[in-house]
């Protein structure tokens, strides 16, 4: 590697470190583009052997001075974020340093600046592809550090630039560092600072496509966005009862001014006991599930039927009743308990929605339900009627918005919100309280992980009906046309499952790895060790019977031998300690990192006679300490001489 190619590598590495910032939106795209354009121009100059001085060094220096007040302006008025302004500053420094390097060697500082850009990129990234970025970056940084180390060593000795370490060596150390890093990652403490929350904000780009209100007079589209917003694992035997999965996060129970709204009443903290938040009374079949949830602006989408949640420090009910929020940083991994017939802790808003029922709608409703008097019977009849007689029209962006009245009486076609709202209107017309539930439906089972992957495009609305005791779920949207019902070819399914597995692993065991996981890890480890040793003991006692006693004896012998070895080591240490003590008495302070020979050298300067006396003993001590072979005579001689010195 020539100097020029190394310089090019340094420049390209700084540019590469900033690439993830394009995807995380941590800073403005304009500043990133400017940075990359400037650096690219410097790269071209260096490649053409014209030096990195794209701008004269003097001008760069003035720009650097001018940047100091600009930083404040940036933080207060432009970026309005100290973090973004600091990232801009680091990018400026990275652009400034190549020009400065013409006059002053600053290779180490440049690597540090590049590392800061890397950290800014890393801190704001959550996608699994960041792993590849980390590896590539680490490889080149290792190469640069090895080169720097080599250069410094040669420089101190006044030698010329020699052959720097190779890419192979960098790869070797990258492998080792990654292995050690992987071992360390789960062990690093996940103890949060309770006073300062830190600067990590919610993750971007993971909204739900669900609105706070439903206004059927406005045009609405559901984006075809395959971003996974949640994963739900339900044990196989519970699937008949709790799938298709419905993640509920919105409840529209009030009609006002042409919109279906949530009945807001403010946040109320849900108390927890032992880390478990109880949000409903259980009823019917109960099963456990795990929900892995991406950020949704603090909104927690829980499977219908959830009555207990574990895995959050704080949980709030609201702003609407039976919808939930948390301030915990996403992504979340929740353990939930599901029941087939949950009852709300505090039933609320059990009256009609307030939708103005027209006589035609009322007539239609009564026609459908006929003489049926039970709530569930009425709801089932209306659901069946709509399933049979209505068409699902997904994302009809070209069609003009229509009223619910028109949907029910004339068009009989629309998206899921029409179906949900229409059913509520028909139920209200028959005197049954009902509400629209919003969230996600279905998802795709990943056979490799056992998780249902719920995507943004699975956003859906359905109906909940109050039967006097609990809310019942009905969905009038034709099942074959609901989200996630589209068929894919097997290869696509397999590849999607594979990709999702990797992302799942990343989300579950990297991004959401927390204190609870650490505790589980250690608990599992101790359990495994305990069980393994029990099994071993059982096998031993079963196979050898009386030999178990011998094993105990063997254990005692092993412990004794270990103690013996320890004492032997202590004896060697004692020799050092004693010599150190003697030297200290002579006025030589022997530090823990000082060798006896070094101390002797000092003694020689201060007390030559004492040094002459001690010299043979030190030689013997060193021989004994560093010799590869054991010599009993030598050890005896050392002990004897030490004893003489003591006297």
């Amino acid at each position, binding site marked *: 590697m020539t100097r020029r190619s190394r310089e090019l590598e340094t420049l390209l590495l700084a540019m590469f470190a900033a690439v993830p910032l394009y995807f995380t939106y941590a800073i403005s795209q304009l500043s990133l583009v400017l940075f990359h354009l400037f650096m690219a121009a410097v790269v071209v100059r260096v490649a053409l052997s014209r030096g990195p001085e794209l701008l004269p060094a003097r001008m760069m220096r003035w720009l650097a001075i001018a940047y100091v007040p600009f930083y404040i302006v940036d933080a207060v008025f432009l970026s309005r974020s100290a973090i973004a302004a600091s990232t801009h500053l680091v990018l400026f420094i990275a652009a400034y340093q190549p020009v400065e390097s013409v006059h002053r060697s600053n290779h180490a500082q440049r690597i540090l600046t590049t590392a800061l850009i890397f950290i800014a990129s890393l*801190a704001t990234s959550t996608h699994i592809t960041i792993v590849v970025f980390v590896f590539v970056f680490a490889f080149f940084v290792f190469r640069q550090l090895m080169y*720097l180390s080599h250069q*410094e*060593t040669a420089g*101190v000795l006044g030698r010329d630039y020699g052959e720097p370490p190779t890419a192979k060596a960098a790869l070797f150390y990258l492998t080792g560092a990654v292995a050690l*890093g992987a071992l360390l990652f789960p062990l690093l403490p996940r103890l949060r600072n309770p006073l300062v929350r830190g600067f990590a904000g919610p993750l971007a780009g993971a909204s739900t496509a669900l609105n706070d209100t439903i206004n059927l007079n406005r045009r609405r589209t559901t984006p075809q966005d395959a971003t996974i917003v949640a994963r739900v694992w339900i044990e196989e035997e519970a699937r008949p009862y709790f799938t298709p999965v419905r993640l509920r996060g919105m409840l529209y129970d009030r009609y006002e001014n042409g919109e279906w709204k949530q009945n807001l009443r403010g946040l109320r903290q849900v108390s927890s006991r032992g880390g478990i938040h109880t949000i409903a009374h259980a009823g019917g079949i109960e099963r456990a599930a795990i929900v892995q949830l991406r950020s949704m602006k603090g909104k927690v989408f829980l499977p219908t039927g959830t009555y207990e949640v574990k895995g959050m420090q704080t949980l709030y009910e609201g702003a609407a009743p039976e919808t939930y929020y948390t301030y915990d940083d996403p992504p979340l991994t929740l353990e939930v308990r599901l029941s087939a017939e949950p009852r709300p802790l505090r039933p609320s808003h059990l009256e009609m929605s307030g939708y103005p029922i027209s006589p035609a709608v009322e007539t239609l409703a009564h026609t459908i339900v006929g003489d049926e008097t039970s709530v569930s019977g009425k709801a089932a009849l209306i659901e069946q009627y709509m399933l049979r007689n209505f068409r699902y029209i997904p994302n009809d962006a070209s069609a003009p918005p229509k009223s619910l009245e028109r949907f029910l009486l004339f068009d009989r076609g629309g998206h899921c919100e029409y179906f949900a709202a229409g059913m509520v209107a028909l139920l209200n017309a028959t005197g049954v309280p009902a509400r629209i539930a919003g969230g996600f439906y279905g998802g795709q089972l990943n056979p490799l992980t056992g998780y249902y992957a719920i995507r943004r495009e699975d956003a859906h609305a359905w109906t909940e009906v109050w039967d006097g005791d609990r809310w019942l779920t009905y969905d009038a949207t034709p099942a074959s046309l609901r989200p996630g019902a589209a068929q894919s070819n097997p290869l696509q399914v397999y590849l999607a499952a594979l990709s999702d597995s990797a992302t799942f692993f990343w989300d579950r065991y990297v991004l959401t790895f927390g204190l609870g996981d650490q505790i589980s890890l250690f608990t599992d480890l101790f359990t495994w060790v305990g069980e393994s040793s029990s099994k071993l003991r059982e096998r031993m006692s079963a196979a050898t019977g009386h030999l178990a006693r011998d094993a105990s004896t063997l254990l005692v012998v092993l412990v004794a031998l270990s103690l013996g070895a320890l004492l032997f080591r202590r004896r060697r240490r004692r020799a050092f300690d004693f010599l150190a003590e003697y030297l200290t008495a002579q006025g030589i302070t022997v530090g823990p*990192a000082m060798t006896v020979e070094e101390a002797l050298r000092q003694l020689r300067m201060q007390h030559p006679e004492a040094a002459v006396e001690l010299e043979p003993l030190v030689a013997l001590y*060193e021989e004994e300490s560093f010799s590869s072979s054991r010599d009993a005579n030598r050890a005896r001689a050392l002990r004897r001489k030490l004893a003489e010195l003591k006297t």
Partner: protein
Amino acid sequence: MSSAAFEFNGVVRFTKIGTTYLAATMVLAISAINTGNNALYIGVALMLGSLLLSGIASKGGLKHLHAEIGGMEEVWAGRPAHGTLRVRNESRIWNVRDVVITSEALAEPVLLAEVQRRGTVEVDAAFLFPRRGLAHVHSVDSYTRYPFGFFLKKRRLRVRSEVLVYPRVSTGEDVREQFRPAPGEESVANLPGPGSEIHSFREYARGDSLRHVHWKKSASLGRWIMKQTEAESSSSIHVLVDPYQPQGTPDDELEQMISSAATLIYHAVQRDLDVTLSLPSTTLRARQNQSASPLFRALALLEASPVPVHQFVERDTIVFSVMTSSGAKTGDLLGHERDSSLGTGITGDPASRRG
């Protein structure tokens, strides 16, 4: 070129890069703990992994190094001697790069660019020994910043090397002039001694060899007459070194005296003179075209004597002693218990030569 930048007490030292790296890791770790951001934890884990690996690699690499010193033939005190430093890496895992070897015996630090695992590197090295005698090199210090330059690691490598260091010899032009034989010394000595030409005749003395009987004169005179040959002193010098070091005399004076003697012998050999060196226990000769190494070896190993040593000073002998006096004459007995001022105070001064 200095080894001072490397030398330090202890076995490990953080470099400037290492300190900065550690500080950055700490800051990132605090950020990770504070935010609970696992992306930052990945960075911290990788950085700590690198730090750990750096320590393991540099320690593991140096731990398996073994050094040997060799290839030194003639080693003179105070003059760089070229030899070889052979370093073997017995590690099965770690290649080591940028290893700097320093030692009191090395004239300058040696840089080993790379010692591959299970490999050996042999480099030329300049050694420098300040004093004559048998020098023992017990250890050399190895240092490395490899792989990432976070630490400067040190390990003392045990070596078993014994080097005979000849006395310090001055070789400057002025010194050569100082030790140039005086005018006329290269002519015939006109003295009896070993040689081929007949110088004179004398009466037989007990112990004389019959080979030196002059038969013709003996027959004419009726008694045994011995012939004496003329000494060929023009091409030889006789040097006597007195190792007596009276109490209170600094070691440096003795060393200086031996160095002067060695310098004289060195230049005499350079001029193809036969040199005879008398020491208390032995007399050594170096004839023309012969190596003078035995003489220098003897001077290298000459030890100071705390008591006066009896040595017979022949005529025309150049005496080196730490004593200052009027000088010795041929046939004098250099015995300080008899007269401590008898020894000559020649310190490389040809004028002190006695004849």
